C-alpha cells in the first residue's frame, strides 16, 4: 500500500512548517509542522475544535494562516493561490453543488471555472465512474445524500487535482453510499495524495499511509503506517476524543 508505482515517492506533496492560526485571542493551530509524501494518505484525527477543519481549510487556500509556511507540490500557497488551487480538490460534508442546476450543469460550471480541457469527455467519464450517468439531466435538489456525495466527488476530481482533501466524507451517508465512496477512494487511491479528516478509525486506517492526531491545535501523535501500532493509536484516540463516537 505504501509503495506507489509511477510516482516519485521521495518528493513531498505537502510541506507544512510552523503553521499557526490565531482567531482573535484563540490559537487554533500552534506551530504545526508535517509532510505528506507524494501519493501518501494522511488520516487526521482529533476531537471537535482541535483545529482539523481549520488546518484543511488553510491547506485548501480558503483561509490564510497567521504565520508559517505551506507548500503544495513545491508551491508556497501564499504566492500563487490560483496555481495551487488548480492542484487541489476538496470533498467536505457540504457537497458544494447548486441544487437548482442539473448534475451536468454543475460539473460544466466548475469545469469552466477550472478551465478543464476536454470538458465534455471528462464529465462523461466521471459521471460514469460515480454511477450517476442516468441522472445527468436531473436537478441536484432531487438527489439523495449519497448521490450528492458521489457527485461532489466527481466535482472534486473534475480538474484532475493531484491532492484531495476529505473533510468527514462519511457524515450522513447510508451504508450503500459508504460502500460506493470506499470503492471510489480505493480506485483513485493510486494516483492522488490524500488528507482525510474522519471519526471513522477503521475505514480510515484501511487506506492511510500515516495517521495524525491533533488536539488543541497541536500534533500529539504522528506515525507512518509501518511504525503504527493500531492498538496504541486507538488508545490515544480514545483518551483524547472522549464521548465523540470514538
Amino acid at each position, binding site marked *: 500500500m505504501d509503495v506507489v508505482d509511477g510516482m516519485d515517492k521521495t518528493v513531498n506533496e505537502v510541506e507544512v512548517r510552523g503553521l499557526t492560526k490565531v482567531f482573535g485571542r484563540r490559537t487554533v493551530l500552534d506551530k504545526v509542522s508535517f509532510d505528506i509524501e507524494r501519493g501518501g494518505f494522511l488520516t487526521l484525527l482529533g476531537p471537535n475544535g482541535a483545529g482539523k477543519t481549520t488546518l484543511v481549510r488553510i491547506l485548501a487556500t480558503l483561509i490564510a494562516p497567521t504565520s508559517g509556511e505551506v507548500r503544495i507540490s513545491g508551491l508556497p500557497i501564499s504566492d500563487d493561490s490560483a496555481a495551487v*488551487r488548480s492542484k487541489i480538490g476538496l470533498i467536505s460534508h457540504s*457537497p458544494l453543488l447548486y441544487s437548482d442546476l442539473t448534475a451536468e450543469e454543475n460539473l460544466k460550471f466548475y469545469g469552466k*471555472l477550472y478551465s478543464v480541457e476536454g470538458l465534455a469527455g471528462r464529465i462523461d467519464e466521471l459521471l460514469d465512474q460515480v454511477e450517476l450517468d442516468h441522472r445527468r439531466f436531473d436537478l441536484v435538489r432531487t438527489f439523495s445524500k449519497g448521490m450528492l456525495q458521489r457527485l461532489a466527488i466527481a466535482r472534486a476530481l473534475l480538474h484532475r487535482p493531484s491532492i484531495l482533501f476529505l473533510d468527514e466524507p462519511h457524515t450522513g451517508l447510508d451504508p450503500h453510499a459508504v460502500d460506493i465512496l470506499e470503492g471510489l477512494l480505493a480506485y483513485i487511491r493510486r494516483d492522488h495524495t490524500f488528507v482525510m479528516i474522519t471519526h471513522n478509525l477503521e475505514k480510515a486506517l484501511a487506506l492511510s499511509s500515516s495517521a495524525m492526531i491533533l488536539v488543541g491545535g497541536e500534533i500529539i501523535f504522528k506515525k507512518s503506517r509501518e511504525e503504527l501500532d493500531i492498538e496504541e493509536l486507538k488508545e490515544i484516540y480514545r483518551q483524547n476524543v472522549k464521548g465523540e463516537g470514538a
Partner: protein
Amino acid sequence: MNLSQIWAIVKKDVVSELRTKEMVVSMFLFVMLAMVIFNYAFGAEKNDLTPYAGGLLWTAFLFMSMLGLNRSFVHEKDEGCLDGLLLSPVDRSTILLGKMLGNLIFLIIVQVLAVPVFAVFFIEVNFLGRLGQFILSILLSDIGISAVGTLLATISINSKMRDMLLPIIFLPVSIPLVIAAVISTSGALAGAGSPDELQQISSAMKFLVAYDIIFLLVAYALYDFVVGE
C-alpha cells in the same frame, strides 16, 4: 479576471433563477404592491404623480433590489457554494464581477417588467422623447446599486444577522446614489423646465457616473478581504 469565468458565474445564476423564478417573481410582485400602496399613500383621487415619480420609482426599486441581493448570496452560502467558488482558481474580482452582473441582470429584468406598469399607473406626460435619458439614468443607478450591494451583501451574509444586516448598512451608503437617481429619473420623466433644472439633471447624471466608478473601484479593491479570510 477572466471573461469566460465571469460568464460562467453569471450563466449559472441566470439558469438557476430562470428555473425557479422565485427571485424575479417576488421582486416584481414587491414593486407592484409598492405601487398600489403609493396610490393610497399619495392621493387616490389626483393620480398624476409625475412630479414625484422618480422618488416613488426609486423607493420601490431600492427596497426591491435588496431582496435580490440577499437572495443571491443566501444561495451561495446555504449550499456552501461560496467555498466552491473560492476553491477554484478564479480571482476574487472575477467572483465579484460575476455576482454583480447577475444582480444587475435581475434588477434590469424586473425593471423592464415594472416600468411600463408604473408609467401607465402614475405618469400623465409623454416621456417617450426622453426615453434614452430615462433608461440611461436607471442603468447608471443600477450599476451603482449592484456594485455597492454585492459588496455589502457579501458582508451581511457572513454575519449572525444574515440578511437583516443588509438594509442597515446598504441603505445609508446608497443614499447619495438615490438622491442623484431621483433627480435624473424625475428629470427624464417630467422634462427639464428651466436651464437651472437642466443643469441640475446633468450634474446628477455626472454624479451617478462618478459614484459608479468610485464604488466599482472600492469593491474591486476590497473584495479580496470580504470573501477570503
